[in-house]
């Protein structure tokens, strides 16, 4: 009898599912219209996509602008304005065939001349673009016909397509007409008419401190897209307010959510869709390796840093003296991966070198004793953290505590604001160690400009040419298998020399309302709203 009842119930449920299926299917058919309300945690710096810093600007650029190609979360290249591309076997000549129906928002065509104009502009030192370093391998750009453009490289560059798709904003095409018509200042402030892209959304207005609005571009080259009428971006800096706004349904999407509040968000909004993925951003405790020998910041004459210029001290403190597991447990509630290697576990060609730096207080003490430090000569240094993210301060505090356990090491924490930190580190100022998460890395190669010896952003200012040589070999090797071998050599070398002291990956979270559909999570690299629709 009981089994009969169960069978009847199952049949009833099955019938219900059959009856209801059209509704579910209908719910999954994209609906057109509506406004996507997005919350940013930081203000957009300015709107010149080729020069403005910050992810917030990049995520706008990716939706107003278009490029040649994009990259999917699994690393496949997909067409954007270019319908196809090919290269010669030596990897020196790349030809891109453009789609015929791509228009800029001002009605001018996206043609080979526009591609050449955009790449030349990025490579021009007067543009002062952060992308310029990535185009080092480009020799010239040539227009073959209106729909074909050829890029000649000086040397093979294995990550040329990665770079075009996703290094920083990837290549964002500029309309030559609009760029010549408006000044840089006009573009930076978002003057009407000056922000002209070829992406799915047209720029409407940017009211700093209030909102940025974009609306559907009806002549977007992908038929039927975008689904949304409008995207409204607001800046909500306080995470509590951001959570309240989300709970109230005032925002549909939080583009970057602080990891320490994820549990609260889940508890308050069980229906919230938490988006995260492989860790691609390194969280590091950088140590300065050299200082100017003549006392002039940025001088090429270098001498070892008085404390961390000694490899034994770097290894004692950065390698053996830090318990990465404990840091991750406390600072990230376990939601990150302790990682010694320079490129976090979500990066292409990542290498696990955690075995090189086990937490070992005895080894740390022995190395420090060898370097002349001990109870009679304590080691004091400054540990800088900035106010951009509270997790930096937590990590700095844990590091201070861990090093304190050695008995004679004292890390004095100094908290500064972001601009002060940037000034001190970029301008070769006085610092010993800092905690910070730097750029998200889609490939190991994309970290070259943060860690080779000639880079402005190589804050430790090591002057080891072997690093540059390894990076160059890695980037120029076209065989993926051989590249992996070089990647391993490079990452092991960086860890062995402690030129780059990673703590862990830095998790990245986005939060979406359950009615926001069609979004593909691809960390910070690709944030596109063209296929997003609202199931309300």
């Amino acid at each position, binding site marked *: 009898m009981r089994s009969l009842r169960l069978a009847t119930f199952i049949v009833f449920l099955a019938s219900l599912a059959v009856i209801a299926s059209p509704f579910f299917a209908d719910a999954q058919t994209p609906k057109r219209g509506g406004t996507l309300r997005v919350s940013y945690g930081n203000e957009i710096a300015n709107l010149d996509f080729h020069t403005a810093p910050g992810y917030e600007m990049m995520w706008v650029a990716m939706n107003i602008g278009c490029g040649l190609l994009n990259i999917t979360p699994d690393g496949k290249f997909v067409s954007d304005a270019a319908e196809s591309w090919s290269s010669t076997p030596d990897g020196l000549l790349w030809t891109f065939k453009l789609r015929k129906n791509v228009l800029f928002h001002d009605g001018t065509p996206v043609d080979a001349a526009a591609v050449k104009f955009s790449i030349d502009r990025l490579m021009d030192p007067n543009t*002062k673009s952060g992308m*310029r370093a990535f185009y080092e391998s480009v020799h010239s750009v040539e227009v073959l016909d209106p729909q074909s453009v050829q890029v000649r490289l000086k040397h093979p560059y294995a990550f040329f397509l990665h770079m075009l798709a996703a290094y920083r904003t990837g290549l964002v095409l500029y309309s030559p007409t609009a760029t010549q018509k408006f000044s840089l200042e006009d573009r930076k402030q978002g003057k009407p008419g000056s922000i002209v892209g070829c992406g799915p959304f047209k720029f409407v207005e940017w009211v700093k401190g209030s909102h940025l609005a974009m609306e559907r571009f009806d002549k977007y080259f992908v038929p039927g897209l975008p689904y949304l009428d409008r995207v409204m971006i607001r800046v909500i800096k306080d995470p509590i307010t951001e959570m309240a706004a989300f709970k109230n349904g005032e925002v549909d999407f939080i583009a970057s959510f602080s990891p320490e509040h994820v549990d609260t968000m889940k508890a308050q909004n069980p229906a919230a869709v938490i988006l995260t993925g492989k860790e691609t951003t390194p969280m590091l405790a950088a140590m300065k390796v050299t200082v100017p020998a003549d006392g002039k910041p940025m001088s090429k004459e270098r001498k070892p840093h008085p404390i961390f210029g000694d490899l034994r001290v770097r290894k004692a403190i950065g390698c053996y003296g830090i318990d990465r597991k404990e840091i991750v447990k406390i600072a990230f509630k376990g939601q990150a991966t302790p990682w010694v290697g320079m490129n976090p576990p979500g990066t292409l060609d990542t290498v696990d070198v955690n075995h090189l730096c086990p937490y070992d207080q005895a080894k740390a003490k022995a190395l420090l004793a060898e370097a002349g430090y001990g109870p009679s000569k304590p080691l004091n240094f400054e540990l800088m953290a900035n106010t951009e993210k509270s997790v930096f301060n937590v990590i700095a505090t844990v590091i201070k505590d861990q090093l304190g356990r050695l008995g004679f090491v004292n890390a004095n924490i100094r908290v500064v604001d972001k601009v002060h930190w940037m000034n001190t580190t970029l301008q070769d100022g006085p610092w010993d160690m800092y905690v910070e998460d730097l750029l998200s890395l889609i490939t190991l190669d994309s970290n070259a400009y943060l860690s080779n010896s000639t880079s402005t952003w190589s804050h430790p200012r090591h002057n080891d040419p072997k690093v540059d040589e390894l990076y160059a070999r890695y980037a120029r090797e076209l065989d993926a298998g051989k590249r992996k071998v070089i990647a391993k050599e490079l990452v092991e070398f960086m860890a062995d020399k402690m030129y780059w002291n990673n703590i862990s990956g830095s998790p990245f979270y986005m939060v979406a309302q359950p009615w926001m559909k069609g979004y593909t999570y691809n960390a910070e690299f690709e944030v596109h709203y063209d296929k997003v629709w609202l199931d309300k």
Partner: protein
Amino acid sequence: MRVYIGKRLLEIVPTVLMITLVVFVMMRSIPGDPVVALLGDAYTEEDAIKVRAEYGLERPILVQYVIWLGKLLQGDWGVSILNGRPVLHDVLLRLPVTFELIALSMAVALAISIPAAIIGAVRRNTWADYTATTIAMVGVSIPEFFIGVLLLLTFSIGMSGALPSSGWVYLPGTCPTIVCAAGLLGNAQHVLMPALALGVGRAALLTRLLRASMLEVIRTEYVTTARAKGLAERPVIFKHALKNALIPTITVMGLQVGFLIGGAIVVETLFAMPGLGTFGIDAIIARDYQQVQGFALVTAIAFVVINLLVDLTYTFLDPRIRYTG
């Protein structure tokens, strides 16, 4: 009276000059360089030098100040180093939001403090007095951001979103932008929590002050005379005692404008409001010198003008007060 007002208006000039000079020098003395924020990951020392030259930042501070002042006299408040936007345009865009917030915060403060102080003074040493005094003490002790968070938790998270957590809805007919929400109800909903957060602390302070002032006034002979003449208690308190007791309170209210502008920075950041407070704090954090100068200038003018208005109010409260040249 006109001569007096003219003199006071003239006094604004050196005051504002002094304030802007101090801010100018201080901003350039603290560590940090707007060029670093501007260039971001494109930073190179060579480009930084070029950009500094473009904005005249390599010149001596006083020379920069004189140049800024010269442009100001021509109505040019400069442009933001970071985003190229005209400072005056952004200040004017944001000023109404902060003005409304501060005006309503003061209204909240007065709406709470006047009745509380009168009750406290008239029913001295009763439970009503103790309650008003205790609440005032608690209000003074709690910072604005904490009251703001409590309000958020109560009305935005706790009461199924009874009030919006953030953003701004303009008063009808005041929309300054293309995409803009406007409406009386929406505006009231958006300003209520920020005004409460900012006003409660001020209410507490004014309650204590007004209560003490009322206690002093109701013991004076003219109040006793008014009572002896057979006047009812209500006109004695409201017409005779309160008007005189308000004079020191209004003086403090004027001085409180400075604190309200400071508080607006916190409250506007918490409630993500597009006001002058968030403009100021963003400018300071980015070391956007031009914007900081604009912020300092407008707050200095507001402070001085409001205090002038406060001084003029005395004549209406106490006809014995007369200003002469």
